[in-house]
C-alpha cells in the first residue's frame, strides 16, 4: 500500500527483541517432537541403500526446507491451537515417512494420528504454502502423510476426514451428483455402523429442519433417483486402475509454467 512495506516479528512465537523471536521455544521444540532423525532399516548395507531415484528426489522437496519458520509464523491452525505440531515439523516428518530407508513409517504416522494436535489439525488454509520461500509446500506434505496413513496403513483418522473423503468418492461414483443423505452416514462407516448412530441422532435437528423447509423429501432421501452417467464411471475406472498414486513434486515438475516438461508428475512414495 503506497509503497510502504510493513515489517514485523514472525507470528506464533514469543518476541525477544525488535524483530527477533524465540524460535527455539516454538519452531525447534516442534521439530524435536517428530523424532527428527532417520531410524535405519536393517541391515544397514555396506555401500549405499539401493532406493528408487524418484523416492530420493521426492523427499528432497522437504529437505529443501531451510527451517526459517515462515510457515509456522503464518499457520492459522497454530494460532488457534498452539499445541498443533505445525507445518514445518510435519514436512520434516514426511521427509522420514517418505524415505524408503526409514524403518518406522507406521510408528511415526500412528503417533501423528493419535496426537490430538497432530497431522489432522491442519485446516488446509494454504497459508504455509504461500509463506514458504523454498517451495516445500508443507500443506502438501501433510496431505501426503494423511493419504499414506489412510490408504496404506489403514490408520484411523480421528477427525473422520479420511472416511469423509472416501464417502464423497463412493457417493459421486454411484450417483453422479452429491446425494447428501448418504454422505453423513457413509462418513461414519455406513448407516448401521455403531459410530454412525450417535452422529445421526445428533444431526437429526438439521434433518428435520430440512424436511420442514422442503429442502429434502423423504423420497429423495431414501431412494436414489439419479445414477452416475457412463463417462463418469469411465473416469473412475481409469483413475482406480492406475497401479500407483501419482503425486506432484516440485523438484521434478518445476512450477506451474513448467508443466509442459516431460514427466511432470512422478510416482508418489512407494508404499
Amino acid at each position: 500500500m503506497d509503497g510502504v512495506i510493513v515489517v514485523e516479528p514472525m507470528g506464533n512465537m514469543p518476541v525477544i527483541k525488535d524483530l527477533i523471536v524465540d524460535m527455539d521455544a516454538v519452531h525447534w521444540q516442534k521439530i524435536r517432537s517428530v523424532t527428527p532423525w532417520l531410524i535405519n532399516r536393517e541391515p544397514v548395507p555396506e555401500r549405499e541403500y539401493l532406493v528408487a531415484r524418484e523416492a530420493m528426489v521426492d523427499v528432497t522437496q522437504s529437505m529443501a526446507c531451510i527451517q526459517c519458520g515462515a510457515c509456522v509464523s503464518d499457520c492459522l491452525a497454530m494460532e488457534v491451537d498452539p499445541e498443533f505440531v505445525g507445518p514445518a515439523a510435519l514436512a520434516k516428518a514426511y521427509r522420514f515417512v517418505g524415505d524408503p530407508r526409514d524403518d518406522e513409517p507406521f510408528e511415526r504416522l500412528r503417533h501423528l494420528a493419535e496426537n490430538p494436535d497432530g497431522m489432522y489439525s491442519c485446516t488446509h488454509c494454504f497459508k504455509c504454502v504461500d509463506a514458504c520461500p523454498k517451495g516445500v509446500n508443507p500443506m502438501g506434505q501433510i496431505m501426503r502423510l494423511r493419504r499414506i496413513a489412510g490408504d496404506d496403513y489403514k490408520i484411523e483418522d480421528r477427525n473422520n476426514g479420511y472416511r469423509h473423503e472416501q464417502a464423497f468418492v463412493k457417493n459421486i461414483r454411484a450417483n453422479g451428483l452429491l446425494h447428501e443423505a448418504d454422505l453423513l452416514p457413509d462418513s461414519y462407516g455406513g448407516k448401521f455402523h455403531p459410530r454412525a448412530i450417535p452422529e445421526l441422532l445428533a444431526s437429526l435437528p438439521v434433518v428435520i429442519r430440512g424436511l420442514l423447509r422442503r429442502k429434502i423429501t423423504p423420497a429423495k432421501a431414501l431412494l436414489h433417483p439419479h445414477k452416475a452417467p457412463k463417462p463418469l464411471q469411465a473416469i473412475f475406472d481409469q483413475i482406480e486402475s492406475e497401479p500407483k498414486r501419482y503425486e506432484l513434486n516440485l523438484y521434478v515438475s518445476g512450477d506451474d509454467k513448467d508443466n509442459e516438461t516431460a514427466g511432470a508428475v512422478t510416482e508418489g512414495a512407494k508404499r
Partner: protein
Amino acid sequence: MPEHDVLIIGAGLAGQRAALAAAQNGVSVAIMSKVHPVRSHSVAAAGGINAAIDVSDDWRSHAYDTVKGSDFLGDQDAIEVMCREAPGEVMHLEHIGVTFHRNERGELDLRAFGGASINRTAYVADITGQAILHVLYEQLLKHSSVVARYEEWFTTSLIIDDDGACVGVVARDIRSGRIETFAAKSVILASGGAGQCFKPTTNALICTADGMAQAYRAGAPLMDMEMIQYHPTTLAENGFLITEGARGEGAHLLNKDGERFMSKSAPNKMELASRDVVSRAEQTEINEGRGVGADGKGIYLDITVVPRKRTLEALREIVNIGKDFAGVDITREPIIIQPGQHYIMGGVKTDIDGQTPITGLYAAGEVACVSVHGGNRLGANSLLDTLIFGRRSGEHAAQRALSTPVPRISDTALRRDAKMIEEIIARPRSGRRVSEIKEELGTTMNSHCAVFRDGPGLQSAYETVRRLKEEAAHAYIDDSGTVFNQDVLGAIELGYMLDTAETIVAAAIERTESRGAQFRTDFPERNDAEWLKHINTTRGANGEPEISYSPVTITQWQPEERKY
C-alpha cells in the same frame, strides 16, 4: 564455569562432524556457534562432494587430480588420507540419512565437476551442503544427551595457559550479553572461512575469519594465506554463487563474440578446468575487451544447452537465483557472471589429525590448512575436507582428552574480553563507523588481491590494511544494549578480518611467483626451485606478521607442468 572434555567452536559441517565423532569416543562434548547451527555457512554449499565411489574410479586418481588442482602445493600425505577415506565417509552420510540423488539402478549418482578426470561428485540437487548439514544436525538432536549445544554463543578468544597449551575459550551469550569462561581439555576450531574480508564475496556475513585471527593471536601459524580462490561463476549483480554444477551439467562460457574461449587455455577440459585456470581465462577476456554486460565486466554462462528438465531437477536453486536476482530464466537465456571471491585455501596450520602447533588446539574445515588444497581447491573437495578432518580431529581430541586432567583456569582472559567489549560500547562517535571500514577493506582486497596481482598493488593494499587497523581501534557502533547486540560483535569481527587480511596480503607479497590462485603479473611463471614451499605467517612481537616456510610433502606425484 562450564567444563567439557572436548569443546568445538563452530557448528558447520566440520564442527558438527567433529562433535559426533568425539562423542562416539565416550567423552563429554560441547559445540558452540555464533548462529544457529543450520545457519552455518556450510548450508550454502551447492554442487556436491567428491569421492571415488564409482567402480571404475580409484582414490589415487582423486588424489592425483587434487594434487594437480593444488598446483603441487598441497601436502600429498594429507591428500592421500582425504581421498582414501572419502568413499567411506560418503557412505556414512548416506546411512545417516542424506538424500543423495540416485541413478536408475538406485545407486548414488555422480556428476562432473571441475578438475576431475571422471564423474565423482555425489550431490543432492543443488542443495548438497544444506542436505548434509541438516542431517548432521538431526544426529546432534539424536545424541543431545552426550553433546551439549551452545547455540548463538560468540567465542571472543582462546585461553592459553602458562605452558602455552589451549585450555578453553571466552564466549558471550548473544541472547543475554553474559560473558563466560569455558574450560576444555581439547578445543577444536571449526569456525569457517574469511570471505567477508572481500567485497563482493560468495560467502555469508558470518564468514569473518574469527577462528583464524583467534589462533593467530594465540601464537599459531597461518599457512598458505595468499591462496584465495576466485570462483569462475558468480552473479554479476551481487556476487552470488552459480554452482560449478552448472558447468558440470554441461553449461558453456561465452565471450561477447559468442566464442567458447576456454578452448584457448584448456582445450581438453574446457569449462571444467580447475577454478584458478577458468577464472584467469575469464578475467583475460574481460581485460582484453571481450566481456559482456553494460560495463563489459561479465561473461555469459549458457545453461540453455542443458536439457530443461534436468536443469529444473538438479539446478533448481540457481533457476530461482537467476529469476529472483537477475531477472533471467536460465533455462532460456544465458546469464552474466564474473569471477568472484569464494574460498580461502589457507588457514590455521594443522597435521592430518587436525592438531595445530599449540597443544590442545585443533582446527578443521575452512578455518584450517592441512594442506589438502594447496594453491587451488577443486570444487566439491571442501565439503569432503570439512568432514574427513572434522571427524579425525574429533577422534584425536577425544583420545587426548581421555588422558588429560581438567585444566585450571584463571579469569584473566574473561576480564580482559569483558573490558574490551565495554570499551567498544563506550567509544565516542568521533571516528569512523565499523561498516565503513569493513567496506573499504573489502573493496581494497578485491582490487589488489584478486585473480591478477602485482607488487605495487599488494603493497598499497598492505598499507591500507595497516591504516584501517588503526582506524578500527576507534571505530564506533550504535547499539549499547546487551540482548542480541550484533553491533558489538561486528566490531570484534572487524578486528579479526583486519588481522587475517594483513596475513593474506603479507603472504601474497612474499610469494614472488605464480602458482594456483596466486598469479603475479610481475612474476608470471611458476618457480619450483624457489617456491615449492608453504608460507607461514605468525604474529610477531610488534604485531606485524612474520614469515617463515615449511616444506611441501611429496609422496608419489612429482611436480609437472599443469595442463587441462
